[in-house]
C-alpha cells in the first residue's frame, strides 16, 4: 500500500500509472482511497433521488392492474400485487409479440453497437495516425452532420432505402446505426491521446502491417474508449425510435421502443383501442432492466479496461 506511485509508473507511459488495488477495509487514506465526505455524499444522494424518483414510480406502477392504475395514487401500491400477472400478460399480449420485439432489439443493439464501435475505432485510428487526402473536409462534414436534425433526414433516408429495397427489413435499422459520428470523434481523440505513435512505428519496423498494427497494438489500448463508445451506441440504438418507426411497417421487426409506444397509443388516442397502461409500464420496466445490467457489467469492464490500457502501455 504505497501512497506514492511506484517508480515504474513514471517510466514514460502516456496513459498514466497502473492503478493499484488499494487496501480495501484498511484505514489508510490515499489518493486512490481518500476519506469519505458526508457533505459531498449528501449532495450526490439528493441528485440521485431526483434521478430515482420517476423510476420508483415506474416500479410501483408495474405492480398494479389496469383497474388499480386508474384508481390509486401514483406512489401508493394498488389493491392487488399484479407484477407477476403483468409480466406474464406482457409476454402473452398480441400472441407474445413482446419477446419478438425484445429479440429484435437485441439484434439491433448487439450488431449495431459492435459494428459501429469497430468502424469508429478504425476511422478514429485513420484520422489520428494515418494520412489521407480530404481528411479535414471529412472530419468537418462528419461532425457537421451531427447538427442536422434526424427528422429532416428521415424522409430522404426512407426514400433512398426504399430504392435499395431495404425498407421493412432489419437492415433499414441496422445500417444507419453502424454510423456513430460521436463515436468516431471520441475514437479519434482517444487514439491521438492514448496510442503513442512511436509504439506503432516500432511495430511496423518489426514487420507488422498497418492493419495488424491496428489490431494488435492500437485496439487493445483503445479498450476503455471502445467500451465508452459501445455503451453510448448501445443506449442510443436501444432507444432509437423515430427511424424504425418510419422504416418498418411490419410489427415483427419492431424494436421495443416502437412496440411499447404502439401499445401506449392504443389507449391514448381517440377510438376504441384497448387501454393497457399496466402493460406499457411493465414492459417499460422490463426494457430498462437489461440496460441496467448492461451498464453495470460494461462499467466493470470499463474500469478494468482503464487499468488494462495502462498496464499494456
Amino acid at each position, binding site marked *: 500500500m504505497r501512497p506514492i506511485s511506484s517508480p515504474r509508473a513514471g517510466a514514460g507511459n502516456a496513459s498514466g500509472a497502473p492503478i493499484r488495488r488499494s487496501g480495501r477495509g484498511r484505514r489508510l487514506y490515499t489518493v486512490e482511497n481518500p476519506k469519505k465526505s458526508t457533505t459531498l455524499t449528501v449532495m450526490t444522494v439528493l441528485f440521485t433521488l431526483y434521478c430515482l424518483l420517476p423510476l420508483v414510480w415506474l416500479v410501483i406502477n408495474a405492480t398494479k392492474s*389496469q*383497474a388499480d392504475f*386508474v*384508481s390509486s395514487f401514483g406512489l401508493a401500491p394498488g389493491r392487488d400485487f399484479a407484477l407477476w400477472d403483468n409480466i406474464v400478460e406482457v409476454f402473452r399480449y398480441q400472441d407474445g409479440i413482446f419477446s419478438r420485439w425484445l429479440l429484435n432489439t437485441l*439484434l439491433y443493439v448487439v*450488431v449495431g453497437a*459492435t*459494428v459501429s464501435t*469497430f*468502424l469508429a475505432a*478504425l476511422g478514429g485510428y485513420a484520422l489520428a495516425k494515418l494520412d489521407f487526402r480530404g481528411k479535414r473536409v471529412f472530419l468537418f462534414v462528419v461532425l457537421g452532420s451531427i447538427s442536422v436534425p434526424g427528422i429532416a433526414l428521415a*424522409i430522404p433516408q*426512407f*426514400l433512398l432505402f*426504399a*430504392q435499395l*429495397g431495404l*425498407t*421493412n*427489413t*432489419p*437492415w433499414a435499422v*441496422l445500417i444507419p446505426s453502424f454510423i456513430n459520428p460521436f463515436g468516431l470523434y471520441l475514437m479519434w481523440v482517444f487514439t491521438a491521446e492514448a496510442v503513442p505513435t512511436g509504439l506503432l512505428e516500432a511495430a511496423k519496423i518489426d514487420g507488422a*502491417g*498497418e*492493419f*495488424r498494427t491496428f489490431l494488435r497494438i492500437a485496439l487493445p489500448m483503445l479498450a476503455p474508449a471502445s467500451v465508452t463508445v459501445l455503451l453510448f451506441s448501445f443506449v442510443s440504438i436501444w432507444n432509437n425510435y423515430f427511424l424504425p*418507426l*418510419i422504416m418498418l*411497417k*411490419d*410489427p*415483427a*421487426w419492431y424494436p421495443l421502443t*416502437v412496440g411499447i*409506444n*404502439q401499445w401506449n*397509443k392504443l*389507449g*391514448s*388516442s*381517440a*377510438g*376504441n*383501442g*384497448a*387501454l393497457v*397502461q399496466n402493460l406499457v409500464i411493465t414492459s417499460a420496466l422490463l426494457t430498462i432492466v437489461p440496460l441496467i445490467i448492461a451498464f453495470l457489467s460494461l462499467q466493470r469492464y470499463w474500469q478494468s479496461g482503464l487499468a488494462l490500457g495502462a498496464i499494456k502501455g
Partner: protein
Amino acid sequence: MRLSQKARLLSAVLVPMVALVACSGGSGGSGGGKAAGSGGGDEQVKLTVWSWDGTVEKAVPGFQAANPNIKVEVVNGGSSQDEYKALDNAIQAGSGVPDLVMFEYFAVPYFAIPGKLADLGEFGVEKFKNDYVPAAWADVTVNGKVYALPSDYGPSAMFYNSATLKKAGIDKAPATWDEYYEAAKKIRALGGDHYIAQDTGDIFFLLSLIWQAGGRPFTVNGNKVHIDFTDEGTTRAVAFWQKMLDEGLINTKITGWSDDWNRTLNDGSLATQTMGGWLTSTLPERAPKAAGDFRVALMPQWKQGDKVGAENGGSSFGIPAAAGHKDAAFKFLEYFAHGGGLSTRVDAGAFVPNTSVLESEAFQGKANKYFGDQKVGAVLAEASETVGSGWQYPPFFEWARSIYGDIASPFYTTGKVKLAEILEQWKQRCIQYGNEQGFQVD
C-alpha cells in the same frame, strides 16, 4: 501483403453482416418464401392490410378458409397519422404499397382527390349501398365516386353517469341542450371537480355539435372548398357552447384520452361525455369503478321532440391505386365490411354502420352489464340512423385539425374562450393552406 490486409479488413466487416443475412432470412423470410415459391396449383396472393382496428384481424381465418389461395397479412401501423404518412411515403417511393388501408372518414378525400385511391365503382360497389346508413356511405363518397367501404362508425351519443346526475338532483338524462345547460349548473353546484363535461379545444366535439345543429361549414365541390362558420346551425351551436364555457360549466383543464381524463371518469366527477358510440367498448377499462353507473342516450336535441344526430369519428378501408392485388383486396374488404366476416367482427366489439347489423334483434336486444344492463345497441342504432346528412370534410382536414389546437389553446388557457374568433382564425389558416396546396378555397 497489402491485399491480404485488405481482405482481412473486409472480412472483419463482412462476416457479421453475412451472419445477419443468414439469421434474418431464417426468421423473417418465411412468408415471402411461400408467396414466391407457389409453383403448383392456384396462384397464391399475399395481401397486405394496414389497419389499427383489431377486429379486422379476427376475420382473417374465416376468409382464408374460404379463399385458400389468398393469404392475408394484417399490419397494425400505429396511429392513423403514422399510417397516412407511411402510405404517402410508400406511394412516393413506389414500393411497399399495401393492398388495403384503413382511413378515418375525413382522410378519404385527402387520398381520393389526388388519385391515390382506386375508384371502387369498378368492383360494382354500388350494390352494397343499401347495407350502410346513409351518412356513412356519404363519408366514403368523394365527388360522386366511392373510394372506400365503411368499417366502423362513430354516431355521436351522450354517455352519462346516472349516479352523478342523481347526486345533483337530476333524475332524467337531459334530452335537449336547454336541459343540458340546466343540468350542468346543478352538477357544477356539487363543487370540487364536478363538471358536466370537459373541453380543452376538442374540434371533433365542436364539429359534431355544429353538425347536429344543421351547420355545414365546409362545402367541397371538386377542387373548390368553401368555408363558412356563420351559417345558422353553426352560429347556434357555437353560441350555445360559448355560453357553457363563459359560465364556467365546463372543465377546461382535463383533456380527453389523458390519464387525468380516465381518472375523472372513474371517480364520477365528469358527468357526461358526448362522443362517438365507440366509447362503449373502452369506457369500462377507463372507468372500472363506475361500472353500473353509466348509461347511453341520444345526443341532447336542439328542439324538443327532434331526433337528429351527428358523427364523431369512424373509419373505412380503401384500396390504394398503386396496390398490387386489387381484386383480392376488394374480396377481403367485402368479406369483413359487408359479408361473412362482419358478424365475427361485431362479436369482437366492432361497431359497424351496416343496417343488417344495426337492425338485427341480436344487436338491439343485447343487455350490456357495464351500462346497468341497458340495451346499448338499440340507442346507438338509432343514433346511427338519425345522423344528419350532407356533411363534408375538406380534403386537407388532417392538417387543419392538427393546427386547430395552436389557435384554440391560447384562448383556453386564458380562460376567455371566444369560439367564433377561434373558428375565424382557423378558417383563415385553412384558406391560406388550401390555396397553397392547389385547391380553390374561400
